[in-house]
């Protein structure tokens, strides 16, 4: 099964009405949902069950068929029980554990020493998945922002300058530990006419980033309030994780 994002969303909007009907509807719609969630789920599965790394695709396929299509699993996706992504990972974990139990019945028990690892702890499971999810959100946000800024139909070359300034002023220092270019370097490189011009260019970049981040998240979180909550939740999670080193 292909593991490509959909054309308009890497995560489908958590449309509970759609999900409720999903088990009764055609396989094509379900296929879209499954493909959209494929990558983060695969990362979660491989991080949670490293010994099953080589079977990840097969297990996900089985999960999709058994849970999402045949068993009316989507009907049980209930918004009141929490975020849809949490429901996804819990279901996948339970599915894989069930699979392991069935395998154990067929084969002699394996001791923990033979496994060479401890059973995964709940906190780690959640963090691996959430980190993969956050990475996917941010990568998609930056991809869309760059494409937007470099779009020939937009105000060029100013729009491209916005991306470039964002890249050298913010992205490169954050991700490559590059030194921030000096203010004088910026005005020379981009022909900035005044500090207001420089500031407006950077502010525009931040706003475009924020707009795309909101859009990416809204595509799976749904409504504006839920989007704002999800943005805060992801940020809080990353801050918490970073404090632990």
């Amino acid at each position: 099964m292909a593991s490509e994002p959909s054309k308009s969303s890497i995560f489908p909007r958590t449309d509970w009405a759609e999900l409720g009907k999903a088990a009764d509807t055609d396989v094509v719609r379900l296929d879209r949902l499954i493909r959209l969630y494929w990558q983060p789920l695969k990362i979660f599965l491989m991080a949670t069950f490293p010994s099953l790394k080589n079977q990840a695709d097969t297990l996900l396929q089985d999960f999709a068929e058994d849970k999402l299509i045949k068993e009316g699993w989507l009907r049980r996706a209930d918004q009141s029980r929490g975020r849809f992504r949490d429901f996804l990972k819990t279901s996948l974990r339970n599915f894989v554990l069930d699979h392991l139990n069935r395998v154990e019945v067929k084969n002699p028990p394996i001791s923990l020493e033979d496994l060479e690892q401890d059973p995964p702890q709940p906190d780690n499971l959640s963090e691996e998945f959430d980190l993969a999810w956050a990475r996917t959100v941010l990568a998609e946000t930056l991809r869309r922002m760059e494409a937007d800024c470099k779009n020939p139909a937009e105000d060029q070359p100013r729009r491209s300058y916005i991306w470039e300034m964002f890249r050298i002023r913010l992205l490169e220092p954050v991700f490559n530990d590059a030194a921030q270019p000096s203010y004088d370097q910026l005005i020379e490189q981009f022909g900035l006419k005044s500090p207001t011009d420089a500031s407006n260019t950077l502010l525009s970049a931040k706003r475009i980033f924020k707009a795309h981040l909101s859009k990416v998240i809204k595509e799976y979180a749904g409504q504006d309030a839920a989007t704002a909550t999800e943005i805060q939740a992801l940020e809080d999670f990353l801050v918490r994780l970073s404090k632990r080193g």
Partner: protein
Amino acid sequence: MQDAKKPTVTGGRTVMSDFDSSAAVFKSRAKKLATLMATGEERAKLWRPDELAAMFRHQMSAPMLVDLGTFDPRTATRLRTLSEAQGLLLKSFADLFHHPAPPIELLELIKDFAKANLDHPESGLPDEIATTLYYTSIAAALIRLDAHISQLPDADLQCGLRWTMEQAWLDDKTKELLAKALEKISGGQKGTVP
């Protein structure tokens, strides 16, 4: 992840470089991702304190029409008329402040521009730069034209002028203007240039 190519400037035109943002995100730890997420927050400062000197130099050398031309069309037209009359069309903020007889309307426009930036929560212009423009325009009116373009009480004005003069990144000529203004409103007590 591939190393990003350094951008080059060719004939004043910026050559765009490659940056694999997806690879950068997926290889980075939570701390860098958290920093990226915080990027969208409006309250995050755009500029470092050590950049104020360069920014102020740039501001003073910037053509007035670039910043003041963002006012409403009528004001922009008036600005151009005044500038042309004084031969200041292509001249900078510094040239206006140190002109022997700057048009008072231009000084008032700069004061209003500075105040608007200070009052606007989403203004990217550092408060320090906006504050300096504000008090320098008042000082220029006071010294060059013997005119008061501010309704600030003298005590507040003294406080503002003194604060501005103390900024290490300020040029000497502007400090001197501010010192003279401070002396004038302080009843002859000399304002000391730090």
